[in-house]
């Protein structure tokens, strides 16, 4: 066991982990943040996507030590108190989540996109979410939700 210090969703967290732990394992099994999902667990599916220093990355293949000293944002940190993030709200309003397993990763990819591009085109949304697999929705309602959230954020 070694001690890792992380800044997760604005909180300073300290956790004992084995030296070979990934960021995802630390979030889920060290810190109890089980929103980020363990899907393929080898960097294909995007279910583990979190935002590190503003960029969407795959926590299942990130060694936990690479997140030290950086800002880690997970799906648990997107809402403001009891107020959901506009992307979360629009996912609800547009029916963009079905089984929900891919949703935390897609929300993180979407927020990382909207944080740097407040008025993305449909194509830019598709490209930004191209690393997140969803087996239920067919993606269209997800794109609708991100578009609607962008309009709200821009307006």
């Amino acid at each position, binding site marked *: 066991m070694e001690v890792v210090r992380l800044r997760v969703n604005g909180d300073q967290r300290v956790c004992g982990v084995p030296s070979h732990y990934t960021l995802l394992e630390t979030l889920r099994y060290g810190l109890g943040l089980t929103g980020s999902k363990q899907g393929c667990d080898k960097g294909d599916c995007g279910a583990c996507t979190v935002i590190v220093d503003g960029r969407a990355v795959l926590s299942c*293949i990130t060694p936990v030590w*690479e997140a030290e000293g950086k800002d880690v944002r997970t799906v648990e940190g997107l809402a403001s108190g009891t107020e959901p993030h506009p992307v979360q709200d629009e996912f609800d309003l547009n029916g963009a989540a079905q089984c929900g397993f891919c949703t935390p990763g897609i929300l993180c990819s979407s927020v990382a996109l909207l944080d740097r591009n407040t008025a993305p085109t449909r194509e830019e949304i598709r490209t930004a979410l191209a690393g997140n697999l969803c087996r239920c929705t067919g993606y269209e309602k997800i794109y609708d939700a991100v578009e609607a959230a962008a309009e709200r954020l821009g307006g």
Partner: protein
Amino acid sequence: MLRLHPFRYHRPDTVEDAVALLAGFGEDAMPMAGGTDLMPNMKHRLFTPGHVVSLNRIAAMRGVALSPTGSHLRIGALETLADVSANLLVRRHFPGLADAAGLVAGPQLRNMGTIGGNVCLDTRCTYYNQTEFWRGALGYCLKKDGTVCHVTRVGAKCVAAHSADTPPNLIALGAGLTLAGPGGVRTIPAAEFFITDGIWNTRRARDEILTEIRIPVGGPGRRSAYRKLRQRHSIDFPLLSVAAVGDFDENGAVERINGVVSALGARPRVLAGWDEIAVGERLGRRVIDALADRAYAQCRPLENIIVDAEWRRAMVRVYVKRALSELAGRSGRQGNTEAKS
């Protein structure tokens, strides 16, 4: 759930310290940058080093800048594929390379993966990139833990596919790769970096680190293009990749033209005979067809990827034509439209 094996994680600040760690631990250590190739491979028990040496704190391996005379562009090996694809100098001078970097995997992997890691990417094969359970059920393979190649069935040589997107461009552009190791620093042309051994397909020694890439800036008549065939338009590795670089005179006639095709075997294939077809000619349909035929005759995909090899071969003509049509200015780029940060 795919667990990693236990290992120690080292984070040196300098190339010298990283090289010393790698040399000190010998075969039991591996360097890692973005980790997008090595981490999944370790989860599959393809590599089980006791020590992983992270390169990510080495500031000297970052940055993209023109040399003082403007003759070369230097790209630090730690630059992420997302940053390389969005970099204005890369986009201006080497659009084919920018497109290739922007077509690697998906957005999150491009935010993590580096151009140095892409150049040093392990070869891939249907019978290799699998869990230990899957591989064991088949009696393992020649590349890892076994004695039989399930692709050729008879061969004593591993034919796993070179699957990285940026090297075909770097080869066609005449780039140089700088390696640092216990014996010092050396530079090797990208065209000589790869060998036809799928088990370890580069001339990089296991205790060497690729620190930077230097690409000669061509004249104003230089154009480059990249085309990638894959099953999905995201995430997947190439089933076939084509890089083309041409120098054109002011009348649009070809002065020099290079083509490199990859994802066939263990090393990218530099296409022979293109200059004799195209030099002095404009890149019209007849010349493009002749160049595509010449490429087709030289490319024979293997069953190292479970996608019909004859279809992949047929696509050589199609994708070479598309890359050359782009060089001729007759079609748009394949690059994605990701918002650039």
